[in-house]
């Protein structure tokens, strides 16, 4: 992916938690409509990278550029707006609001973005249909299986039609077959939408859904994918 065609890119991203470095200078570029898997062993910095790219965490050094703009220079309010409108985030556990029904959960980002209640519900219901869980619109998360919850969470992450979806181990809590079905749905929909995806996973079979893979180890890129000669 050349810098020129990158929709989202990070250059020299570094981030520590106290004295512990989590990222030590990571470069990554994601093109429009591209699915990039970020893999690596536990504790390698995958999730921190996702949080930095999504503007949830500020970097200690390095830049994150979205559509040619350095989002590190933006105010917290502007970054928050970016996350509500242009970015979608999907975590391992759907993090649906337990008191709300599926359709209310999915409508939430639209309401936050200023849509009217009726329109938001209608669009949310369409997205639940698209993810194959339309019949669960009035159910609360507690009454759903893990796979159904993740489909709802996917609908919620995509309902604003973000340009970039950040997915952190989106099927990590599901059994193999359910995980594959949910991942297949996510990939199908983002391909239809032309959404770029940063897909965090530690499983090769999940990374195989991506167009390409980058491997992190000890907070730096491991071009070999095998962990030799990295960070030493």
């Amino acid at each position, binding site marked *: 992916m050349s810098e020129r065609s990158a929709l989202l890119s990070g250059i020299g991203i570094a981030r520590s938690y106290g004295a512990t470095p989590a990222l030590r200078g990571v470069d990554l570029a994601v093109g429009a409509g591209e699915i990039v898997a970020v893999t690596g062993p536990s504790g390698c910095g995958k999730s921190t990278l996702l949080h930095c790219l999504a503007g949830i965490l500020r970097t200690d050094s390095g830049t994150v550029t979205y559509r040619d703009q350095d989002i590190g220079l933006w105010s917290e309010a502007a970054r928050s707006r970016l996350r509500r409108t242009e970015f979608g985030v999907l975590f391992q556990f759907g993090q649906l609001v337990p008191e709300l029904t599926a359709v209310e959960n999915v409508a939430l980002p639209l309401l936050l973005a200023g849509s009217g209640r009726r329109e938001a519900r209608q669009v949310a219901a369409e997205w639940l249909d698209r993810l194959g869980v339309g019949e669960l619109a009035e159910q609360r998360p507690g009454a759903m299986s893990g796979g159904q919850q993740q489909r709802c969470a996917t609908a919620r992450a995509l309902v604003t039609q973000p340009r970039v979806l950040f997915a952190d181990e989106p099927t990590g809590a599901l059994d193999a077959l359910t995980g594959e079905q949910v991942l297949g749905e996510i990939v199908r929909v983002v391909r239809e939408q032309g959404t770029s995806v940063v897909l965090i996973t530690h499983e*090769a079979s999940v990374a195989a859904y991506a167009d390409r893979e980058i491997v992190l180890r000890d907070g730096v890129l491991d071009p070999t994918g*095998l962990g030799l000669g990295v960070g030493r």
Partner: protein
Amino acid sequence: MSTAHVLLGLLAGGPRHGYDLKRAHDERLPRAKPLAYGQVYATLSRLERDGFVAESGQDRDGGPDRTSYELTDEGRGHLAAWLAAVDPPAPYVNSEIFNKVTVALLAAGIEQARDYLVAQRAAHMGRMRELTMAKSAPGASLGDVIAADYAIGHLEADLRWLQTTLARVAAMTTELPKDVTT
């Protein structure tokens, strides 16, 4: 995989005679079927015919005469080419990969083993992507999906082993030099 390549790998460390080669083979590849002496000598004579090894001397050492063999330049090149060639990612446990990594570590050193593993890992990931695409394609039959699952499962096992092996190699580097000859 061929016994010939393993013998070439063992000879990369210096001349050995047949008995020595058999012992080294069985020791270094403990899970492989032990080599029969006849197989060792038949393989050595084929390798000699092809110009990959040459007799380097005779010693007696209290018993019958024993012929030692050494790698020729051609044999060294043949071994290097084999070690560098990426294997077709196949839907079954690929013992060729196992043998190649073992021989690379014995004969050629960590760098070559690493280069091979990096290329092999890329080939495996590429094949897994193709299979994933095939099974996710609209209209894929149950048979297609099951066949792809089978292949992906085995390739994934290979990948896990590649990863673990390199992690072990990295951790054990200090213990390897006695085996590394170049």
